[in-house]
């Protein structure tokens, strides 16, 4: 008789993820995009070198994606813009993650009246037009990239708080926690060995899905002229510039727009794949 080896949650999830070709393709495309944006500007042409004689030129062998009206290489600018967009996506998501996980964990562990009050606050905040306040903040206090991180992070933590709190609440009541306690395991060991691994799945999934919505919000602000400031540039800024000049120079809109959409596609497919692989279901309580 063969002895069956146990499967851990993570190896199971990895196998399921590998079968999901869309998610896998999304993940690989993401790696390529990340590498290109991180390393690309080191090798490509300068993103800020102007060539006014050239002006806006269509894609060619020397400028793969063409140039903008100041004769700057669009390929280099798009990669460089990607750096900023992805950085904002990661940092602001991290801010949201820290706030959301802390808030949700405290509410879940506290339980009772404190939990009810904390979640009522989240419900009320959910109903508020936060994007409007982010816009006001950016208009009034200038287009500061650190403010951007914080403002976006402060908007996007609500769902994360709900998810973590729900997980903590349900895990707290599970029999295996009681069993662990009955076996005499220490509080620390229970938290690190049993609670955190079970909360981690949903957190990973929703982090993956928060990144695209954060990047969307950043691009949205940039499109309104409220995002990062020149000479910095992000995909949102490039799309805004492109949309203003698309009548004559279509490539200025089409390439940054495509790259941005591709990134969102990859992140969403990867996030959905992870959700299926880790078998996470959205629950509100």
């Amino acid at each position: 008789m063969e002895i069956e080896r146990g499967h851990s949650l993570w190896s199971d999830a990895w196998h399921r993820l590998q079968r999901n070709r869309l998610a896998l393709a999304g993940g690989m495309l993401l790696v390529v995009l990340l590498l290109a944006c991180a390393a690309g500007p080191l090798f490509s042409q300068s993103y800020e070198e102007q060539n006014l004689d050239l002006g806006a030129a269509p894609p060619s062998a020397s400028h793969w994606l063409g140039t903008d009206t100041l004769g700057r290489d669009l390929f280099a600018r798009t990669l460089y813009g990607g750096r900023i967009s992805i950085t904002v996506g990661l940092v602001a998501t991290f801010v949201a993650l820290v706030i959301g996980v802390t808030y949700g964990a405290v509410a879940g562990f506290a339980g009772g009246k404190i939990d009810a009050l904390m979640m009522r606050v989240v419900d009320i905040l959910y109903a508020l037009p936060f994007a409007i306040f982010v816009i006001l903040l950016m208009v009034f206090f200038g287009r500061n990239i650190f403010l951007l991180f914080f403002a976006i992070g402060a908007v996007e933590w609500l769902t994360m708080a709900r998810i973590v709190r729900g997980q903590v609440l349900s895990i707290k009541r599970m029999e295996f926690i009681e069993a662990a306690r009955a076996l005499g395991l220490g509080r620390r060991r229970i938290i690190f060995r049993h609670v955190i691994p079970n909360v981690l799945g949903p957190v990973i999934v929703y982090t993956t899905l928060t990144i695209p919505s954060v990047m969307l919000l950043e691009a949205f602000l940039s499109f309104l002229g409220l995002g990062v400031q020149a000479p910095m540039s992000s995909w949102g800024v490039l799309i805004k510039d492109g949309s203003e000049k698309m009548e004559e120079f279509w490539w200025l809109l089409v390439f940054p727009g495509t790259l941005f959409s591709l990134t969102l596609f990859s992140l969403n497919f990867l996030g959905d794949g992870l959700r299926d692989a880790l078998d996470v279901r959205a629950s509100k309580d």
Partner: protein
Amino acid sequence: MLRFVVQRLLQTIPVIWVIITATFFMIRFVPGGPFTAEKAVTPEIMRNLEAHYGLNRPLYRQYLDYTWSLLRGDLGPSFKYPTRSVNEIIADKLPVSAELGILSLAVALGLGLPLGVLAAVRRNTWIDYACSSVAMIGICVPTFVLGPLLILVFAIHFGSFNASGWYGPIDRVLPSLTLGYVYAAYVARLTRGGMLEVLSQDYIRTARAKGASEVRVVLKHALRGGLSPVVSFLGPAIAGIVTGSFVIETIYQIPGIGREFINSATNRDYTLVLGTVILYAGFIIAMNLLVDIALVWLNPKLKFE
């Protein structure tokens, strides 16, 4: 039911008050005022201007005056359009944005619901995959990419639409499609998920067993239960359509309240910013309340808490 509604209405009062107060003081503490951008005026004129609008009085007095006039429904005079009141500007621009919003919501539901139901009923066939792909495109191509692309193709290349403006019915097509498509995508996904869950339940099998036609089973029995996720999404969707209108009105140069809001913030038009924020916040909170009521109506198992 009535108690629930009244209770929730009472809860919104402090929320709205906090929003008004926070916005009022936030605007006042930022650098720049409504008259700093204008051509250099002599200090004397500046003083007169400020006296005229009561800006020379202590801040708490201004705040009290503002809330008092607010209680009477008066949003005050605009600083940038000296002859007009904020009430007039809103009355002027709001219908345009409201029309855009309603049409976009119609696109979201009119496109999203059928796609979602179709995908769920024909699960794992090519129809399902096609519907899901259409939805994924909507989620991943943002409005500010889709909008200019639609203009590029349909207005500039084919010339079937105007690239901008808000005159005839034809000018409504591209903006409401652009704004509604994203939400149609989410609605389709949520409908599909909700329908799949409901279609596997016992009461659907009962309905089939008693000989109800498939169309009747889907539309009469399943849809009501399957709609819950969509209805709970309507709150965020309406909020999203409101903020999305800022971008859409910029892209298509529509004279709505969204563009006015962005301009007023840039111009430090204190009263106009406050007026629009109060309008938006009140509207979104009211819509969320309606959504909560609708959810209970759809699923009587939910108890009013």
